[in-house]
């Protein structure tokens, strides 16, 4: 897992059927300063734009958090951080 920041979201009509109804968030890994190197993570906790979040990069964990069995996902937002130091 890593700490990321939500920069926005992605709208996609034609996508895998298991991804329908889920929010696709644009996430930047805070360990990597470049704001353009972002990834797309499925939202499991209703994170908003600009929030510091906890992101998992293991597909199995992502599927468990979203109660999906065969969704082809690598990343999921599984927590919203209140404070980190």
């Amino acid at each position, binding site marked *: 897992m890593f700490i990321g920041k939500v920069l926005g979201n992605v709208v*996609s*009509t034609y996508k895998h059927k298991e991804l329908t109804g889920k929010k696709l968030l*644009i996430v930047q890994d805070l360990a990597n300063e470049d704001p353009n190197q*972002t*990834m797309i993570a499925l939202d499991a906790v209703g994170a908003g734009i600009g929030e510091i979040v906890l992101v998992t990069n293991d597909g199995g964990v*992502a599927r468990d958090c979203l109660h999906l069995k065969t969704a*082809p996902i690598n990343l999921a937002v599984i927590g919203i951080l209140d404070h980190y130091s």
Partner: protein
Amino acid sequence: MFYAKVVGTVTATLKDKSLYGKKLLIIEPVDCRGDKQGDLMVAVDTVQAGFGDLVFYAKSKDAALAMENPNTPVDSVITGIIDSIYKTL
């Protein structure tokens, strides 16, 4: 999942049985502004992406779950076509 742009197609007659009938596209990993971010790679298309489309794809073992047979030997599968990106920060 990661952004990519479709830049070409691949046709292969002799390939693994489970890849028969699947469209193979050449994709170029890009960042969200469209700048090149990695080397070209081949991905299986499951959403009928066309040439020049901005798509997102799944990597590694999770990608194979997008296929009917989850044991197909693929490690990158296009799982969605991006209509619009709403990025404020």
